[in-house]
């Protein structure tokens, strides 16, 4: 049953996965090809800046890949009234667990693309002795970020169902209101800032997304 679910996930998402894997592979190479002639292979500080650019691009690619796979899986199912899911001889919970597991597996592809591309890109740069390349660490972060982004969208779509857009809009409006409250209400600023700091730092939920992302660092 899991194999069948995995095949279905692959069939639904293979175009997107191929695109994100190709972009994840190409981004480090393209950024370095653009940047290196300007750096002349000498500037350590600028190499770190280029590494940051690669890292930020990778974070975006991984997050969008995770969101897309979750969105696409639910979207196709929803368009046909969830007939496929309802036809399976298993419970909803079990079907969703297998679908999440299958998504986790296919999301390894863009991370693999990042790893290969980043390794090739790092190999083209004569790094000074004080700098190191982090292709493996970058790919691992990409995998974690893709899984997290997928889980966010998966939870939204399958928990809220057809109200997902409304829930998403409510969340966005709520975040906007909190942002305005931070500016207008100084007494709550401390608490909101602490809450925000928790969200974006380890062990907060989005710590991995807001941690350091770079290909080249000290």
């Amino acid at each position, binding site marked *: 049953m899991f194999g069948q679910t995995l095949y279905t996930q692959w069939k639904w998402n293979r175009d997107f996965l191929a695109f994100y894997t190709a972009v994840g592979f190409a981004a480090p190479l393209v950024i370095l090809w653009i940047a290196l002639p300007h750096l002349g292979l000498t500037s*350590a*500080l600028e190499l770190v800046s280029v590494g940051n650019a690669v890292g930020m691009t990778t974070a975006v690619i991984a997050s969008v890949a995770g969101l897309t796979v979750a969105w696409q899986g639910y979207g196709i199912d929803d368009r046909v009234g969830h007939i496929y899911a309802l036809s399976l001889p298993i419970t*909803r919970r079990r079907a969703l667990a297998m679908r999440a597991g299958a998504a986790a597996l296919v999301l390894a592809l863009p991370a693999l693309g990042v790893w290969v591309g980043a390794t090739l890109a790092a190999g083209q740069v004569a790094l000074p002795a004080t700098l190191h390349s982090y292709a493996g660490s970058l790919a691992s972060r990409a995998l974690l970020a893709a899984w*997290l982004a997928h889980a966010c969208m998966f939870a939204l779509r*399958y928990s809220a169902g057809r109200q997902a857009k409304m829930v998403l809009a409510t969340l966005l409006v709520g975040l906007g209101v909190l942002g305005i409250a931070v500016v207008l209400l*100084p007494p709550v600023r401390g608490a909101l800032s602490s809450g925000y700091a928790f969200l974006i730092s380890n062990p907060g939920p989005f*710590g991995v997304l807001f941690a350091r992302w770079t290909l080249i660092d000290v």
Partner: protein
Amino acid sequence: MSDARLVVALMAAALTFDAASLRGQTSTLAIDSLLRRVHTLDSSLIVRSRALDSVRRSLIRAVPPVDVRRGAMQVRTTADLEPRVRTAVDSVAVLIERRGGASLAARVAAHVPLVARDSTRSIFGAVPVLSFASDTSGRWPSTTHRPIPASATSAEVADALAGMVEQFALQGVDSAFGAWIMVGRVPLRPARPSEAADGYIEIMTAESAALRRCQSGDKESCLDVLGVDSLPGARLARWYAPQDYRTLLRAVAPAREDSAAVAAWVRCREDRDEPACVVAATSLANDRVPTPLSATARVTFLREVLEAGGANAYERLVTTDGSVRTRLTEAAGMPLDTVVGRWRARISESRPERMRLRPGLIVASLGWTGALLGLALIRRGPWA
């Protein structure tokens, strides 16, 4: 007009009136001398404006009533801030006793810092803050500290007060040493982890031949880039190799009168023309070649000196006469070469390893991912 307004008006008039300014209106043929005169008058106006502002402040804001005192540290504050300020003063007094000794205590005792509620402008209205002034009696503060949020903890207040104490610690020390340290304070507080990591990143990414020699163990080069000793030769030859010129020329430009050098500078920056980089770099006047390391690196080195010297290191630092090297050697109580070795070792240990995937981050990320997936799984309703 009431008496108080009359007094204020007279004081303002007395402070802003300058008979010399009338003479400044007489015509002079030399444009340079006129420009100098304008600068002098500008400076005079700034000084008098500050004096007037301080008089205004003293009339509007009374000195806070609560006196918090511990050892050499005396702070004036308001009743509602007293618990936080008292805790902060206690910890700062301990810092003064441990790290500063009698010399620092004497310097701190000459000031009565003030901690009060204030507000600062933000995009939408005012934000409450705690403001710090180094003196209640002086016309204007001798040191400055930026305000901190009104909800700051006692530890944050202590940190702000300790920052002021670090500035007091440099008062009365000769100008050569003050110029060397550049930041106007003696680092008495322990280094923050981010400070050590920033130092590591700066040293590992700075492009300087002297710094590379320092990293490979040449202690004389370390002392040269730290500005403690000067090796023979021009700065450019001592500190930078030709491969560093392009980065150097991002920070500094040749004199604009030297059109050939400026043209080479443009070619170096825009076309990455290496011979042009050499022309532009060698045209720089010796005193325009920047030091490879920032003031932060000097602060970390001075902190190492003080830690090597133990309890009375600060005392020896400020009471010793002589060059920067002599002061630092006396303060450290050991040869500077040894201190350089310790400093380099500490820098090497401070590698931030920002890209290392820590188990805590992996567990947290997987945990939140699992929790979010669980949120979808626990729903018992229909698929849609």
